[in-house]
């Protein structure tokens, strides 16, 4: 079975097919698996081979997802069921940070102006007819909307067309400080939004913004009706307020329990899409219970950690998809505190952390060591061949030797003592458990300070700067502004809104500001590469990498795709159940 999915081709370039699904403690740089169809395909059956940067064989025939066999056509498929969580507290897509509300519901009931393609993982038109026209040296971005697009036939819109006013009001709402959207900063550069006519909306920018479309395609910025948006901060409080232009309508939503959508009775404006009668998500955060529900056929899909995914290997009733998780593990250093204000100490720590061991021990091999850009930003991350030559990714012996030399040069030949903040949440405490012994190898003796099970306590202390080091994680969109700009720009907390470590590097500020405005892709990629190299050689946060997100689905689901970022519109529109 073959797939043209972007992630499958990316995995093929990176790793050997033999390193499939965490072979229990196998130490492998960037060890990951492939999207497997559980039909028992053998490694040697398919096509030719070529070698990747690791020097091991790689089958070049992409594999992944469950691409329909020839002759298989989409068909009405009943109900799509998923178990996972948490199904969090906020139903307001512009204010939430929890994936299930966004991907689980809004991706089914709404549309973006542009959204990420699961084929090439760059923005593609959704409500827009095409990618926008960019003029005035990148200062004017003009979209034409699809005249067929219409909202659900529910009050207050009653099935009317999606217009430019709706787009304007949506983005004004996201930008508004009163609403407090976590993505508001993405549009701080937008000077004005104008509805030229019903189908034309124009964004005027203060400076060119290369990642504007990528920010818009981020999983949360769906278009809502003007009538809802103009209500302001508390516009979306109930299911009745969840109005979109998607193929499905919101039926019910109970935080901590579940949500349900149903096919819109008036028909979806995109032809030949959306094959389900509806979809239901059941809240469950216990991985064993999720596996039980999948195994007994009560749901069609769920996400599982690597160790439980192994149980489904070779089972022809299931298929396994995976991609890098958009979250990134990180050892945050407070640059305003000694000794982390010394670059040599930071460089030593960058070399001393054992990234591979973190993912081997904490995530059962299901993770990818990475640098300043996560593996989920596949279009931007430094090639693996180059990464392996840089500090932190070379041989352990070489990195440790250099780390000790750097510490000695900084005046810490015997290391030093300090505390590492962490929380019993999202496996950050397990991350800390791996970082402490790794740092001890170079004489840095850390005492763990666990703030408890509430991650927000740690988040707040990070924001306040009341820490010295923190084993933590961040959720970032797969593009440079989301992964580099806000985490490394020295103007905290405004421009560098997540530069909790207060990293300061004037050269870096200049580069970060310049890359934002570069519309020439090649020129920008070169600069992004330079930025990543600089951040590896002169670290801000100590980036560890990304865990892998695994999904296990019924093998009956057709036309599935791996995607590292929640893009449930794919399941909503282009996946169906085999007859």
């Amino acid at each position, binding site marked *: 079975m073959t797939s043209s999915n972007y992630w499958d081709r990316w995995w093929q370039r990176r790793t050997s097919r033999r390193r499939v699904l965490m072979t229990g403690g196998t130490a492998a740089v960037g060890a990951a698996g492939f999207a497997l169809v559980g039909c028992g395909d053998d490694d040697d059956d398919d096509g030719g081979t070529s070698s990747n940067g690791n020097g091991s064989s790689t089958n070049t025939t992409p594999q992944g997802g469950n691409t329909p066999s020839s002759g298989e056509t989409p068909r009405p498929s009943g109900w799509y069921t998923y*178990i996972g969580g*948490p199904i*969090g*507290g*906020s139903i307001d897509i512009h204010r*939430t*940070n929890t994936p299930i509300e966004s991907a689980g519901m809004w991706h089914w009931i709404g549309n973006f102006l542009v959204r990420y393609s699961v084929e090439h993982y760059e923005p593609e038109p959704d409500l827009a007819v095409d990618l926008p026209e960019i003029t005035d040296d990148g200062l004017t971005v003009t979209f034409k909307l699809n005249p067929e697009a219409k909202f659900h036939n529910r009050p207050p819109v009653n099935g009317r067309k999606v217009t430019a006013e709706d787009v304007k009001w949506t983005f004004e709402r996201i930008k508004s*400080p*009163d*609403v*407090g959207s*976590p993505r508001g*900063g993405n549009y701080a550069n937008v000077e004005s939004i104008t509805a030229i006519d019903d189908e034309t909306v124009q964004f005027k920018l203060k400076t060119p913004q290369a990642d504007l479309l990528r920010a818009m395609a981020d999983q949360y910025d769906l278009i809502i009706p003007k009538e809802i948006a103009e209500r302001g*901060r*508390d516009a979306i*409080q*109930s299911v009745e307020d969840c109005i979109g232009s998607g193929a499905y309508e919101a039926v019910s939503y*109970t*935080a*901590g*329990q*579940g949500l349900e959508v149903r096919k819109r009775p008036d028909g979806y404006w995109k032809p030949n899409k959306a094959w389900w009668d509806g979809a*239901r998500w*059941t*809240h*469950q*955060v*216990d991985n*064993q*219970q999720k*596996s*039980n*529900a999948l*195994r*007994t*056929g*009560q*749901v069609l899909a769920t996400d599982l950690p690597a160790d439980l995914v192994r149980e489904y290997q070779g089972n022809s009733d299931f298929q396994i998809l995976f991609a890098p998780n958009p979250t990134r593990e990180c050892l945050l250093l407070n640059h305003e505190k000694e000794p982390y204000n010394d670059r040599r100490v930071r460089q030593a720590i960058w070399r001393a952390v054992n990234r591979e061991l973190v993912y081997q021990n904490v995530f059962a091999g299901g993770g990818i060591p990475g640098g300043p850009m996560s593996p989920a930003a596949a279009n931007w991350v430094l090639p693996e061949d180059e990464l392996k030559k840089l500090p932190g990714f070379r041989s352990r012996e070489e990195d440790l030797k250099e780390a000790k030399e750097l510490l000695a040069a900084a005046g810490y030949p015997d290391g030093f003592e300090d505390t590492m903040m962490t929380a019993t949440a999202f496996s950050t405490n397990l991350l800390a458990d791996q970082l402490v012994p790794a740092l001890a190898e170079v004489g840095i003796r850390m005492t763990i300070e666990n703030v408890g099970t*509430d991650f*927000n*306590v740690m*988040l*707040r202390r990070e*924001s*306040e700067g009341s820490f010295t080091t923190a084993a933590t994680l*961040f*959720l970032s969109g797969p593009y440079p502004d989301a992964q580099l700009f*806000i985490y490394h720009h020295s103007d905290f*907390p*405004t421009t560098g*809104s*997540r530069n909790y470590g207060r990293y300061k590097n004037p050269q870096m500020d200049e580069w970060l500001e310049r890359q934002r405005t570069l519309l020439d892709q090649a020129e920008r990629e070169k600069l992004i590469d330079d930025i990543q190299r600089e951040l590896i050689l002169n670290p801000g946060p100590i980036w560890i990498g990304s865990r892998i997100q695994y999904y296990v689905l019924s093998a009956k689901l057709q036309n599935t795709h791996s995607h590292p970022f929640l893009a449930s519109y794919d399941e909503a529109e282009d996946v169906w159940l085999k007859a």
Partner: protein
Amino acid sequence: MYQFIVRRILLAIPTLLVVTFIVFSMIRLDPESVVAARLGEGYDTNSPAADAVREEYGLNNPFYIEYVRYLGDLLTGDWGRSAISFKPVLEEMGPKIAVTLELSILAVIFAILIGVPIGVYSAMRQDRWPDYVLRGLAIFGLSVPGFLIATVVLALSAYYLDWIPPINYTGITENPWSNFQQMVLPAFILSLATAAQVMRYSRTMMLDVLRQDYIRTAWAKGLRERVVIFRHALKNALLPVVTVLGLSMALLVGGTVIFEGIFNLPGLGSWLVFSVIQRDFAPVQGATLFFALAVVLINLIVDISYTVLDPRARR
């Protein structure tokens, strides 16, 4: 009896006040965390959005003002509004209380059905192998955590029987069979610890009663074992068991949290945990207050029932 009830109710008021004060205080020990919870990663503590959250939660007001306001609202039937669902707490709590009570009551029923017969039989076969085996099982029921049993049972059931209880809750009035399928397993497992306690109490009390003179007289009269046990001994042996069951019920109501999570039951316990994580103050206060009320009420009922069952206790 009437005076007894009134006195107990009046005594409950300070208890409930202490509970509300503790809960109200605890969730405000770190007030800024609620802002972080609301606004998520990268929030700006000086932003209008952060100010709005502080205003919404009354974090800018002195503690005592907010507490008194809260008590006043309680007395007028306003238990607050969830900052997540925006619904009144009482309105949200109702269906969840029903789920938790259903689970707890079923668990108590199972505990009685399992614990009493086993305890009686064990007493009748004292110091013989059935007694040893059953006492061993009771130790197992007391020592192994219920959530562990539940996790193992569910995993084994999924693997070998290809069945687990339905993951989406159906009310008993909607579909009694589906509701029973979903409730029977968690209720049974939840009951095991209580059943073990009941078994041990039943056995101990039965042994004590069986040594009484009137029982010896019954034996001497040549009555059959069944008559001696069930007509003469059992009702006296079970009096303390009523107390144990009552106290267990109170513990069960508050102890369903983990089971509700494992079995996807939308009860009060899982809602409480979720609200704590989300820093949703009003449901946390409401649910905790309900649990406190439930414990007080159940203890009251137990005391009253004891006086009804045992005339000696009325004096």
